[in-house]
C-alpha cells in the first residue's frame, strides 16, 4: 500500500436529494403549481385539515394530494372524492418522504391540471426536516392537545 492521501470534499450528504428537489422545483415553477409540504406529529390533524381544505377548494382551485405513510392507504382513501387527485405513498420502514418518491408519484397525477399540490408528509417532527421535496413552502403545525411546547421540543423542524 502506498501513502495516505487526504481528499477535501465539502459536499452535502443529501446532495442527490437536493438535485432531484431542484429539478422538481423547476418543474413546478414551469407549470405554475404551488407546492406545500405539510409536516406535523402523527395524529395532529394533517389529514383532517386537508379533508376540510379540499372540500373548501372544490370547484374553485384544482388541487392534488400526495400523502405518505409507512403503511395503509387509509389517509389516501379519506381524501378521495373531494375533487382532488390523490396519490398514496407507502414508505415501508422509511420515516420521511424524499424528492425521488415525489418525482415517482407525479407520474400518477394529471400534472398540467394542478394549481396546488399538497404533500402530506409522514407524521414525524424529526426525519422529514432534512429532505427538500421541491416545495414552495413548508407548513409545520401542531395541535395544542399534543402539548403547546412542541416547538421547544422539536427545534429542528420549527426553525
Amino acid at each position: 500500500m502506498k501513502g495516505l492521501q487526504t481528499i477535501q470534499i465539502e459536499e452535502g450528504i443529501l446532495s442527490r436529494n437536493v438535485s432531484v428537489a431542484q429539478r422538481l422545483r423547476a418543474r413546478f415553477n414551469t407549470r405554475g403549481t404551488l407546492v406545500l409540504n405539510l409536516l406535523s406529529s402523527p395524529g395532529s390533524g394533517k389529514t383532517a385539515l386537508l379533508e376540510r381544505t379540499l372540500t373548501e377548494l372544490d370547484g374553485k382551485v384544482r388541487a392534488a394530494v400526495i400523502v405518505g405513510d409507512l403503511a395503509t392507504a387509509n389517509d389516501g382513501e379519506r381524501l378521495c372524492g373531494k375533487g382532488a387527485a390523490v396519490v398514496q405513498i407507502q414508505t415501508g420502514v422509511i420515516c420521511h418522504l424524499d424528492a425521488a418518491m415525489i418525482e415517482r408519484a407525479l407520474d400518477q397525477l394529471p400534472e398540467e391540471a394542478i394549481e396546488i399540490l399538497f404533500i402530506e408528509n409522514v407524521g414525524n417532527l424529526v426525519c422529514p426536516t432534512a429532505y427538500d421535496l421541491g416545495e414552495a413552502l413548508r407548513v409545520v403545525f401542531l395541535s395544542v392537545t399534543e402539548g403547546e411546547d412542541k416547538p421547544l421540543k422539536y427545534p429542528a423542524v420549527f426553525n
Partner: protein
Amino acid sequence: MHEVAIMQDALQLILQHARRAGAARVCHVSLRIGELSGVEPDALSLAFEILTEGTIAEGAELETLREGVRYRCDCCRREFASKAGCWTCPGCGSVEATLISGRALDLVSLEVAS
C-alpha cells in the same frame, strides 16, 4: 431514526470519491453535522459501522464535526449563537431571527490509502 438512510447516501458519496481517487481503502471520514440537522452522531456512527461492512471503508475512523446553531436578528442584524429552539436576540430582545447555521449535513473530507 433516519440515520441509516442518511448514512446510505453518505457512504455512496464516500465510495464514489474514494474510487475516483483510486483508493484501495478509506481510513478516515470527516462529516459536519449541524445541531439542528435532526441527526444524532452516535446513531450515525452505528449506521456507519454496519453499512461499511464488506466495503473499502470498513473499519475507517468516523469523525463528526458539530456545527453550532447561529441566528441573525431580523431587527438589529446582530448575529448570535444559540441553543436549539431559542432565537430571542440577546441584543434587542426581538424574536424575529433568521437561522444562518446549524443545519449542516456535509461530507467534509476523506483520508484514503491507495
